[in-house]
């Protein structure tokens, strides 16, 4: 369990370009949860997640992992939390895919047998074929590079996996592929997953709980259904709602007694329920 206690983070403190990126944030991430973090660009999402493994230290406040303060300055990185940063393909540097994915486990001083096992596991996880292990990652396509970068974090087997806009810039096939696999991994291994995303359709489909950030503050928090029950509030702070929700809100405006929906599955169920009740009348 990770707990944020009154976390504030200020960049360039005391300079003309001073910026409050997090303002008194209190949050709780339970073990085995799939949490989505949404908010406009600049609302503090990236700053928030980079505190989780100690990449950033709070200006004030603290972050507890299983009751232990992991935000003390000078303390290194907390490797129980694996973060895939934005555009992670930018971090690729090794000559072969194997070495790239093995970089993390190697730094963790694991033995070579274990490293091999982990690389194989991570490759499998992101759905990359074994025969590219010895090719240079720079020769691969953008989508494959992204998956290698994700695999390189997965190979460290973190208890908490944080993904900062993992699908941005990918085509829809690539998007679906990555998220579906992460979701399956979460279900199987009970890993905690924190997903930062702009794509509400993604969030609605995979996430259990949503945290909404606005101007450095947590303004809403709750189960995904509860959050999308308030489309007007979300729109007010510049966030989207899934298109299917928009269509059903319109249907409601046309005088039909429909519930708010936010996934295709819910929409279908709701449509047929409505159809049935109307026919029975």
């Amino acid at each position: 369990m990770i707990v944020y206690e009154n976390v504030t983070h200020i960049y360039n403190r005391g300079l003309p370009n001073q910026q409050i990126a997090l303002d008194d944030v209190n949050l709780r991430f339970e073990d085995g949860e799939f949490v989505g973090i949404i908010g406009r660009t600049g609302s503090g999402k990236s700053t928030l997640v980079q505190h989780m493994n100690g990449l950033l230290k709070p200006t004030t406040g603290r972050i507890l992992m299983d009751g232990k303060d992991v935000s003390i300055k000078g303390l290194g990185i907390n490797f129980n939390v694996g973060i895939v940063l934005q555009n992670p393909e930018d971090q690729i540097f090794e000559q072969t895919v194997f070495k790239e994915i093995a970089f993390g486990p190697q730094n963790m001083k694991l033995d070579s047998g274990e490293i091999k096992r982990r690389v194989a596991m991570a490759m499998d996880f992101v759905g990359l074929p074994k025969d590219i292990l010895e090719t240079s990652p720079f020769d691969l396509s953008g989508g494959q590079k992204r998956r290698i970068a994700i695999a390189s974090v997965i190979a460290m087997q973190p208890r908490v996996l944080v993904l900062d806009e993992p699908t941005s810039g990918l085509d829809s096939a690539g998007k679906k592929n990555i998220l579906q696999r992460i979701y399956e991994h979460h279900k199987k291994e009970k890993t905690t997953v924190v997903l930062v995303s702009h794509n509400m359709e993604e969030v609605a489909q995979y996430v259990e709980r949503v945290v909404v950030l606005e101007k450095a503050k947590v303004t809403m928090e709750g189960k995904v259904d509860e959050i999308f029950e308030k489309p007007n509030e979300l729109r007010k702070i510049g966030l989207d709602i899934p298109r299917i929700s928009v269509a059903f809100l319109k249907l409601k405006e046309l005088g039909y007694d429909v519930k708010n929906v936010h996934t295709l599955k819910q929409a279908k169920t709701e449509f047929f329920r409505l159809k049935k009740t109307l026919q029975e009348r």
Partner: protein
Amino acid sequence: MNPILQEVTLGNFLQTNSVVHKIDPRLKLGSVFVYTILICMFRGIYALLLTFVALLAVYKGAKIPLKALWKNLKVIVPIITIAAMVNIFLIPGSVVFEIWFLKVTKEGLIFTLMMFFRASCLVSGTALLTFTTSPGSLVDALEYFARPVRMFGGSPNEIAMAISIAIRFVPTLFTELGKIIAAQKSRVAPFDSPKLRERLRAYLPVIVPLFHITSKRAEDLACAMESRCYAGNNKRTKFRILRFGTLDFVALVLMLVCAVGTFWVDRWRLYS
């Protein structure tokens, strides 16, 4: 954007709309030039100290917090410390005190102090220029001073443009650098290892991606400039026309007074 790197201020322009920001960029660039030469010429510590104090006063006038300056100075501190350690013990002269077999001399101490202030003055002077002058105006100033290259068939505009883009890219590169370091740190790269060799090795995974990203960005920028009809010729017109006004005249006089004054302090007051 990734947050970690917003912390860097090196090479950044900080808009505070102060008087210093409004001074003609040619004067500012020229002053930094003159002043760099002066600093290298000073023989005594008093003039250096005086210059440093005067500089701090200009920072105040420019409304640039000293914290921004400190961030730039921090970069050179390790280099100066190493050089100081060497000099302080190696320069012969009258011994002030001894630690075991190492002799600390008065000459060594003064030399080290001077080196420290010299470096600080140089860094804070050049940083002041970039803090208070937008890259665009800086190009204008550079172009103005590069005019003689026309005689040799060169294009002052191209030179100025190249330099300005280099300056404009410094913060971006720092941003990228910070991002990559964050990513590799998350993969347990031993940046904080007590062993120097390990720490140096940890930087390889930083340099390779940085190189890739930089070339990609440079390519993009070249495309963007070409798309906006940039051809690097001398037929370009200027959006900003530089005018040397009253404010600039006052600044010039002040600058000259300071230059002559410190030089006088350095040469005549001390040695006559």
